């Protein structure tokens, strides 16, 4: 007699977590510099190797070969050091960092450098959406295009893209600078609270409460300095955009006071 049941499917919802992974200890270390091949390693193993080199062995220059577009590599490094990825990263690469100088000789997926506190991230090719989301400080330089919602919720620091930017760039940004050398998609600076956006190309449409800003010498000085630091040549002519500060959150009343207003 057949069992009264259908086909049962089971799966491991923990995905790639690997809570029991060990440090693989696969790096070659010479003159204070470490190199390892990430190709055969899992995400967890790569991050464990990085952390072991930087925190336990005191290495300040690490090269990661063959990252293979894996996700979440190099996250949470809170130490001044230099990390070079020889290849592309997947989503959430080098997020939550405070201090490292990161060179990525490839492209990155969504949310690179999310929540960076300080440091430098330079990407040689393109970046997906949400590049530099919610960064508090540091510089993020992308030498190609960036995707939608670049610099969303940005609270400080500078994002520079040498190519185009997708829709809603600077959405709800609160401080810091976004520099787009190409064109910007629709909804630029939508609902921004503060900060500055520079665009050299065309802007498809400004977002709500984003308006052209007046140019000052400080803008010129900032752009020339950043371009000089990263060897980007002479800055092109930019338009400047800032917050118009006319949205509801810029009135002078506290929410409790607003209730008392009688029209």
């Amino acid at each position, binding site marked *: 007699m057949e069992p009264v049941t259908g086909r049962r499917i089971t799966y491991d919802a923990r995905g790639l977590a690997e809570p029991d992974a060990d440090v693989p200890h696969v790096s070659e270390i010479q003159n204070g510099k470490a190199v390892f091949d990430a190709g055969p390693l899992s995400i967890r193993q790569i991050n464990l190797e990085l952390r072991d080199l930087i925190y336990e062995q005191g290495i300040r220059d690490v090269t990661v070969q063959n990252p293979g577009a894996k996700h979440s590599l190099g996250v949470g490094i809170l130490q001044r050091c230099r990390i070079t990825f020889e290849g*592309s990263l997947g989503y959430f690469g080098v997020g939550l960092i405070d201090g490292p100088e990161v060179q990525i000789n490839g492209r990155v997926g969504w949310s690179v450098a999310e929540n960076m506190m300080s440091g430098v991230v330079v990407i040689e090719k*393109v970046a997906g959406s949400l590049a530099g989301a919610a960064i508090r400080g540091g510089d993020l330089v992308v030498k190609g295009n960036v*995707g*939608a919602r670049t610099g969303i919720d940005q609270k400080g620091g500078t994002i520079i893209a040498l190519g185009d930017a997708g829709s809603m760039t600077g959405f709800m940004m609160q401080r810091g600078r976004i520099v787009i050398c190409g064109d910007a998609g629709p909804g630029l600076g939508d609902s921004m609270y503060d900060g500055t956006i520079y665009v050299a190309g065309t802007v498809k449409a400004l977002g709500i409460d984003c308006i052209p800003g007046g140019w000052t010498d400080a803008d010129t000085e900032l752009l020339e300095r950043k371009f000089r630091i990263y060897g980007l040549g002479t800055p092109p002519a930019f338009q400047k955009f800032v917050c118009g500060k006319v949205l509801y959150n810029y009135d002078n009343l506290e929410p409790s006071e607003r209730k008392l207003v009688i029209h």
Partner: protein
Amino acid sequence: MCGIAGIIHRDADADVGSEMTRMLQSMKHRGPDSSGYALFGPPTDLVVMRFKLADANDPRDFDFKERLERHRQEVESRLSKIGASVDRVESETEYAYRATVRYEGDLKALADYVEDVPGCEVLSLGHSLEIVKDLGDAQEVSDLYGLDGFRGTHAIGHVRMATESDVDISGAHPYWAYPFSDVAVVHNGQLTNYFQWKRRLERSGHRFQSECDSEIIAVYLAEKMAEGSGLKDAMQQSLEDLDGVFTYMAVTEDSLGVAKDEMAAKPLVLYESDELVAMASEEIAIRAVLDHEIDTYDPYERQVLVWSR
């Protein structure tokens, strides 16, 4: 979340079954509930019909097998009655079948007549399209249906994390664009005007087999193409008509297309070379079939891209 993938070889045939399995399996974390394939093999004069008579997780009562056998015979009988000459009916699991028939008539009439058999759902109809979908990850589905040896020109696939409709085969992607031959869709996202479009399309005579919003896209494209639109035009128009957040892929017998909504809220990574075009929700899926360093990019909002062989 869900993950979608597509690949089209510009000239040669390839092992698209095993390629799609590797792409989908690398994105298992995006959707472990079910996996599905729309595979395009060499075109044939015969019509290939994939259908199921029960779901993978239906309760097996005591006459389950006998009932399915009766229904399978009824499907064959109805195919003959409607004028189709049955070449072969193969059973791939205890509930899913692959039939090849010689048939020149109206595919909608055929599908409607066959689906009138209790429990029957036509998963795909076409001269080269074959939709295979079931519960579990891609490797499980591939093993179950023997997809590793499937050679063809292009394919799309989907791994599903069920959100709003049931975990069953009917809720799994890809969706065949009933009743249009050789058209299928996979989708990542949510459509917010789903019920509005469902009612509108049902009034036009289309049928829906699931409660999944993604099925709308397939039927929507089918209707547009039946009215004379090409694939790219139909996809372009969908950006105006469909609300919500989405990235979807559509395939026909010789084309593969992708569309992104105006907010670009769902991911897609693209790779193009002289030999092939591959795309997926995550780059690791593309790298699962290309073992060398590659340059990829993300399409922007409101982009519709179509590649044809």
